């Protein structure tokens, strides 16, 4: 399956974070979680944010989605300042977070229903994305009847279907077993090759980062600052045993903070 690029990464940035910081008070002490983070994601690229566990990656995504707004700096999406949650940002969660009372179809078409789109149009679009993530035949299944990997495909289709400007994936494969995780990485690559989107992908798994990314931003441990940016420009789909892959892996490993 060679899908090498029919894609184009545009140079215009869809999303821009400038000097974003976040602190909050806990037991009277100020905790700094994000410090002076400036980054941008270009149209149709996969930007991976890589950092150690608990370093504030999720906080950054929530700030971008304005679910829990940043305390400093600005975030703009397609030139518009982001101040409240809305359909321009779609999130895929580590905990998957499907609605257990809705079927695959119900979950995928949810965003369109909220927008008030008519049933026929909604179904058509949802079907397209259910097909895209390879879940044809499972439209009427409830989440409890699906495996972990299938559930997360529903999670991805749900966001795709809403056609946001940027998709934020928060360790989406973190709860899956190693085998499924690997398959889902390939699957995401395939889905993205078929339907390009701007994706910000958060992970603490280095192979996952190198496998998927156009660029990788490495964060430091709490408070999260940008440590370094890496460009990943060798062809897709990548192989984790390629010398280029291993070389980059070594390079990134070299700059990581030692364990405390």
């Amino acid at each position: 399956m060679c899908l090498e690029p029919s894609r184009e990464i545009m140079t215009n940035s869809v999303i821009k974070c400038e000097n974003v910081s976040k602190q909050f008070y806990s037991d009277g002490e100020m905790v700094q979680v994000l410090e002076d983070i400036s980054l941008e994601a270009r149209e149709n690229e996969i930007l991976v944010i890589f950092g150690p566990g608990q370093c504030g990656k999720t906080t950054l995504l929530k700030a971008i989605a304005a679910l829990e707004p940043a305390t400093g700096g600005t975030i703009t999406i397609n030139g518009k300042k982001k101040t409240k949650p809305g359909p321009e940002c779609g999130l895929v969660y580590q905990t998957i977070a499907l609605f257990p009372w809705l079927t695959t179809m119900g979950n995928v078409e949810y965003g369109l229903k909220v927008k008030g789109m008519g049933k026929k149009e909604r179904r058509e679009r949802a079907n397209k994305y259910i097909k895209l993530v390879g879940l044809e035949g499972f439209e009427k299944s409830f989440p409890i009847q699906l495996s972990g990997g299938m559930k997360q495909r529903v999670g991805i289709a749900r966001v795709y279907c809403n056609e946001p400007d940027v998709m934020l994936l928060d360790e989406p494969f973190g709860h899956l077993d190693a085998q499924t995780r690997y398959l889902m990485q390939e699957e995401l690559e395939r889905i993205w090759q078929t339907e390009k989107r701007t994706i910000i992908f958060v992970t603490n798994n280095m192979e996952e980062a190198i496998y998927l990314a156009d660029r990788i931003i490495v964060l430091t441990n709490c408070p999260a600052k940008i440590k370094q940016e890496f460009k990943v420009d060798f062809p897709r789909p990548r192989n984790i045993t390629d010398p280029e892959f291993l070389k980059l892996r070594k390079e990134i490993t070299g700059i990581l903070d030692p364990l405390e």
Partner: protein
Amino acid sequence: MKKINKYTLISFLSVLTFVFIWWTATDLLKLTSPTTLPSPVKVFQSFIGKLYQTNPDGATLLQHLASSLKVALSGYLLGVFIGVPLGILMAWYKPVDYIVTPLFDLIRPIPGLAWTPLMILLFGIGLMSKTMVIFLSAFVACVINSYSGIKSTKPVHLWVGETFGAANWQLLTKIAIPTAVPMIFTGLRVAIGASWNALIAAELLASTRGLGFMIQQARGLYRPDIIIVGMTAVGISGAILAWLVGLLEKLAVNRRR
């Protein structure tokens, strides 16, 4: 399958043994006088008789049952239709929570039955006073359960809604309420039990018809057979009501999970 049959048989034998001991103690050994504990045979005869006789309390068993059901269900439905929406609103809208919760916490620990004397003074011993007592019993269970149901909504589900641009009322109707449905039904089930209990107790205290009234009359007339018939009727109909609500719950909940 074989195992289930075995256990059914054991349960059946257990009931049979109980009735047999009862029969031995009364009809066979005559340990008790018929005005304190009648034999199972006598109770069964009274039960059949009570299906068409209005003696000694002015109505047949089914008439009493119908009267009790009417009161119980009107109080119950009133409790459900006010309690469930109120619980939902309390859980969802902070101001409602602040205004209503203190009042609700005041009446919550009061057993439904404790309202009876006040209600009798206010509304007399007719339908209204008992309906109010039952309403309060059902209401409390409905409010508590729908409240906790809404509160159990996962933040991440609300985030999903918010990032899709859902308005507050959409978050409530499309996320919080579906989350709460199983707990709301638990409330309905608890409430039907509470209503039935409160009704019978209220009827024992003051009424002119109903199963509780029938039992109370029979006590005055030394008719323990009719008391037991009444108790059995209360038990069976209460169980059927609970089963019906449980069935509704299954239809609404299991289909989805």
